[in-house]
């Protein structure tokens, strides 16, 4: 009896101790943080380690070889091409996404009948699994049965029986990868911009109208300055997603023809996971990091600005 009471008292003491904010706050937070540190922080450090070794799947700890992997990667023409492609794909796609999403958001700004259905269709590329939707593109761009080729033949732009070989020619394959990236990121940028539009006070636009502003002037002098902070967020996310993506390239071209559409992420996969060359794969992956870091700093600055503004 006394023992039971003792345990009860200890338990309730323990509970009140746990209930103190100074104890409770970290107790509740630590599991999530520990999970992230263990499964994100540790692998990241391990990637750094791998990049300084000659590790392979057969010998996952390898031998320390200094910066030899980085030297190797920068001398390798395929890796240099992948590095350049990663930047060019991202830049081209994001410029197009920014222009098109601004136009589209302007057109969708005001409510209209059927807007919900239109939004669902417009958002499909973003909300569907990209590895599956890209297979749809693979079929659209098929070497022999491409529907685009059929249409071009119908319009007389392609001789009968001829094909474009969209994914078989470096220039067209390059365009195809960019197009699919634009297709995928455009919905996200558009909804973010639409949220920005809904935060613009109608008075501002009415006033501009009274002052005789036309649509372009209203856009340029009233909307754009107010949309800019939101557009930056869309741009940062688009950049991060496109820059680090390997799915589109993997499904569409496998990096081909002749490694001309290879990007860092896909090359790291082929070298590190398929080829088992862990150290070189990890090194190529790490080349993504500097850009990610810069983007993260800008995200933080955007967040801080929002914090100050409120």
């Amino acid at each position, binding site marked *: 009896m006394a023992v039971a009471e003792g345990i009860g008292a200890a338990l309730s003491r323990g509970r009140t101790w746990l209930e103190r904010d100074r104890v409770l706050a970290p107790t509740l*937070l630590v599991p999530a943080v520990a999970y*992230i540190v263990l*499964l994100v922080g540790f692998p990241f450090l391990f990637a750094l380690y791998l990049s300084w070794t000659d590790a392979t799947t057969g010998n996952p700890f390898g031998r320390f070889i200094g910066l030899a992997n980085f030297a190797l990667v920068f001398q390798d023409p395929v890796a240099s091409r992948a590095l350049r492609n990663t930047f060019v794909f991202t830049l081209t796609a994001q410029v197009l996404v920014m222009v098109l999403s601004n136009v589209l958001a302007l057109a969708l700004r005001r409510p209209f009948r059927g807007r919900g259905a239109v939004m669902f269709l417009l958002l499909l590329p973003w909300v569907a*699994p990209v590895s599956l939707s890209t297979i749809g593109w693979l079929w659209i761009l098929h070497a022999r049965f491409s529907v685009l080729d059929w249409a071009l033949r119908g319009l007389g732009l392609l001789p009968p029986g001829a094909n474009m070989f969209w994914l078989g020619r470096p220039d067209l394959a390059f365009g195809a990868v960019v197009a699919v990236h634009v297709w995928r990121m455009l919905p996200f940028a558009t*909804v973010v911009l639409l949220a920005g539009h809904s935060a613009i006070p109608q008075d501002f636009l009415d006033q501009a109208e009274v002052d005789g502003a036309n649509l372009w002037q209203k856009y340029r002098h009233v909307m754009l300055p107010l949309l800019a902070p939101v557009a930056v967020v869309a741009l940062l*996310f688009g950049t991060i997603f496109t820059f680090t993506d390997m799915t589109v390239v993997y499904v569409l071209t496998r990096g081909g023809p002749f490694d001309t559409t290879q990007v860092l992420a896909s090359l790291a*996969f082929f070298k590190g996971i398929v080829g088992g060359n*862990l150290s070189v794969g990890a090194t190529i992956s790490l080349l993504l990091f500097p850009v990610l870091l810069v983007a993260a700093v800008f995200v933080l600055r955007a967040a801080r600005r929002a914090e100050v503004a409120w």
Partner: protein
Amino acid sequence: MSSRTRRWLLTVGRVALVGAFVVFAAFPFAWMGITAFKQNSDLYNPQNNPFWFNEPPTLEHLQYAFTKTRFARWVVNTALVGAGVVMVTLLLTIPAAYSLARLLGRWGERASIAIFLVYLVPPTLLFIPMSLVVTTLGLQNTLWSLIVVYPTITVPLCTWLLSGFLRGLPRELEEAAMVDGCTRLGALGRVLLPLAVPGIVTVIIFSFTLSAQEFVYALSFVTATAQKTVSVGVPADMVRGDIFDWGPLMASAFLASVPVAALYYLVIERFVGSFTLSGAFR
């Protein structure tokens, strides 16, 4: 030009513009849907108008996908992984978000943004060391590898979303409950969580759809056909040599992507709202 004609032209222009974008966005899905129901002899005849059903529609591709490929198994695997990831995410996210929203004050907001940044760490940065971690844990070629690793994506995002959501709920009700003799955790369980159901549902949908969409980790950790998820099984295993079975391939891609897309669509507003001025970024 009269102002009425101008307005009319503007409306027509806007409809045409939006229509063109809708076609661009939805065409690949429409194309999957059409292909899924076409007979092979129709599909592979370059003379046929591909927009037309030149021969009657067929269910043979769907049948093939379900009976001759592991599609059904991949769907089940995806559901299992999704359920596991949802459980882990809820267990870690709810306490963390509560702590960040209610107990840590100003620092809680900053910490939640720091945690969110982890969401921006892409799988392509970590998949090589992560595959070694998975091997070390003995989880390669199992669904568990994905259930363990996917929370590194879902927990940062959902902690941030949920803490923003909780911060938007009034403190007074919990304080009243505590005055009435509830403990802090009691007030959390009895008062706050019931109010937070919409936020928790968002977390569930996000964890599930992000798991169903993920490709890079799944491709890296799982090579056994029977253990794959839909997002990897369809693009990687439905190809026989160099011959694609376009009918079954499109049928499976369409069937698997539309439900995931519809689920994700339900929560996209909340996701986007959080980046813009009204949400958790403040």
